[in-house]
């Protein structure tokens, strides 16, 4: 009988990349369902376009790099990138926006850096930033939730809007964004920003119909959906608690300080948590295993940095929401964070304590 001495760790969890990625994609479903309810089935068109583009782009680059295509497509990482970008962009953005963005994310941000595991930036967020600074008009064309729109939408309007820029009756996105009084409605974060520059207070601004008790109307449910999916990911062990908690706590602390200084000028933590893409960013984007920090302490710093940057960009920056910029800037800081938070190896003394 041979007596084999195996090195630790002795207990293995045989989790594969494809399982993890598939779980991440599944966990977006509650958020997608909420978007579907409030913004119409255009969300599904965007998702389909994104997934098809991502798979084709991935297959194209893999064949150029002479790798086996099917095996690598099965790791589902392209699927996750496509889903995250599709839920981040406005539901009624023209079709070429999502096609261009997904192709850029997969070909340039992911594959040109060496494929899965080697990309410095989160592909979906890099593509989002590309689209936002290249096509600001299309990328801010979030229509108000269907319930608030003045124009009745017909069954085929989402298709018409995504593929022709006009609804079937010939209304443009800008017209659809107009409420019964002829004022253009924007996302809650955008409206709040515009109102604050027009010398309104937060509470005055929040009496408009696109706001709810907590967060923005519709947006609070979308964020709750992503929160739910995120908690499931945490329960499944796909993500750890550190990054999302650090993002939310840091955003909460920053907005509490703001609200304590002047509640008329700075929105409350609850509003920040439940509007825009906060929950999506905290649970799905910041936790990307490739581009996020990998040490325990580093993840706290990385998450806190994202929360701080999101608050600064939303409150003092030129854009209504800033999680894409925040995540990309934090991605750049990751090598430095990792270098300074390397855990002490057992049996070695920490530096400087000799």
């Amino acid at each position: 009988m041979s007596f084999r001495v195996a090195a630790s760790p002795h207990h293995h969890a045989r989790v594969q990349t494809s399982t993890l990625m598939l779980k991440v994609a599944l966990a977006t479903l509650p958020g997608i369902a909420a978007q579907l309810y409030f913004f119409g089935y255009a969300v599904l068109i965007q998702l389909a376009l994104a997934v098809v583009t991502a798979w084709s782009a991935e297959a194209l680059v893999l064949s150029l790099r002479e790798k086996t295509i099917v095996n690598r497509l099965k790791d589902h990482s392209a699927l996750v990138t496509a889903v995250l970008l599709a839920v981040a962009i406005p539901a009624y953005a023209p079709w070429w926006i999502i096609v261009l963005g997904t192709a850029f994310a997969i070909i340039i941000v992911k594959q040109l850096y060496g494929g899965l595991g080697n990309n410095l930036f989160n592909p979906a967020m890099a593509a989002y930033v590309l689209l936002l600074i290249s096509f600001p008009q299309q990328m801010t064309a979030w229509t108000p939730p269907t319930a608030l729109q003045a124009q009745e939408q017909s069954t085929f309007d989402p298709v018409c809007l995504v593929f022709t820029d006009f609804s079937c009756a010939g209304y443009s996105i800008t017209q659809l964004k107009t409420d019964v009084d002829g004022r253009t409605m924007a996302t809650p974060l955008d409206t709040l920003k515009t109102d604050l520059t027009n010398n309104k207070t937060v509470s005055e601004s929040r009496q408009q119909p696109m706001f709810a008790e907590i967060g923005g109307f519709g947006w609070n449910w979308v964020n709750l959906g992503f929160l739910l999916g995120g908690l499931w990911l945490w329960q499944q062990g796909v993500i750890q608690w550190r990054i999302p908690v650090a993002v939310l706590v840091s955003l909460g602390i920053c907005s509490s300080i703001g609200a304590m200084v002047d509640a008329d000028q700075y929105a409350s933590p609850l509003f920040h948590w439940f509007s825009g893409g906060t929950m999506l960013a905290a649970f799905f984007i910041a936790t990307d295993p490739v581009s996020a920090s990998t040490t325990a302490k580093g993840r706290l710093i990385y998450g806190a940095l994202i929360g701080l940057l999101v608050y600064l960009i939303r409150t003092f920056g030129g854009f209504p929401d800033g999680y894409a910029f925040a995540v990309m800037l934090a991605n750049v800081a990751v090598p430095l964070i990792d270098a300074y938070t390397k855990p002490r190896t057992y049996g070695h003394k920490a530096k400087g304590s000799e």
Partner: protein
Amino acid sequence: MSNFRELMQQGLWRNNPGLVQLLGLCPLLATSSSLTNAIGLGLATMLVLASTNLMISLVRNQVPAEIRIPVFVMIIAAVVTAIEQLMHAYTFALYQSLGIFIPLIVTNCIVIGRAEAFASKNPPLAAVFDGLMMGAGFCLVLVALGAIREILGQGTLFAGAETLLGSWASVLKITVYHADSHFLLAILPPGAFLVLGFLIAGKNALDLRKKASEASQKGSIQRARVTHVNTNN
């Protein structure tokens, strides 16, 4: 004459300042947002390189080695100032659109680089030729970058050519395509980095292909790499 052919190959392709040496990236990336600007700055840099190489080559035996760098810098600064004044006088609109980047030619590493590496060690004729070829190589990359970025970002070519060539040149403007929303990123700095990256990749790909075809023509024995077989892709 083979020496001159060698210099030409070095400047235009094998040792191209923009694609291989990656010198002078700041003006290369900053002024290549349109073809007209690119040609303007490219020609100015070429002129500066040829003149400074000539002057430095002429005084190379008189300048003590210990103080050669300050002397070179002063010569370069004088030439750049002259070029700047000329552009101010004859192409005022272009002078305004290039702005700070004309005087900044003085800090372009390729100018001091060629002065130190080539002109200070070679006779005047070869030095002028080297300056012209290095300048032409830089100019060509600048023009390629400018053309690609202008087509992607504005859908036009030669927009604003009249600032470089006089009022008749406004007919040169070609509208490649019309779109309601242009690809703004190409005009912005990140676009410059991305397009330059693709140009460098393209050059490397061409070189590799040439090398492979040369090797197969020679019929030489290629060593197969057997130490590591990648089985898991």
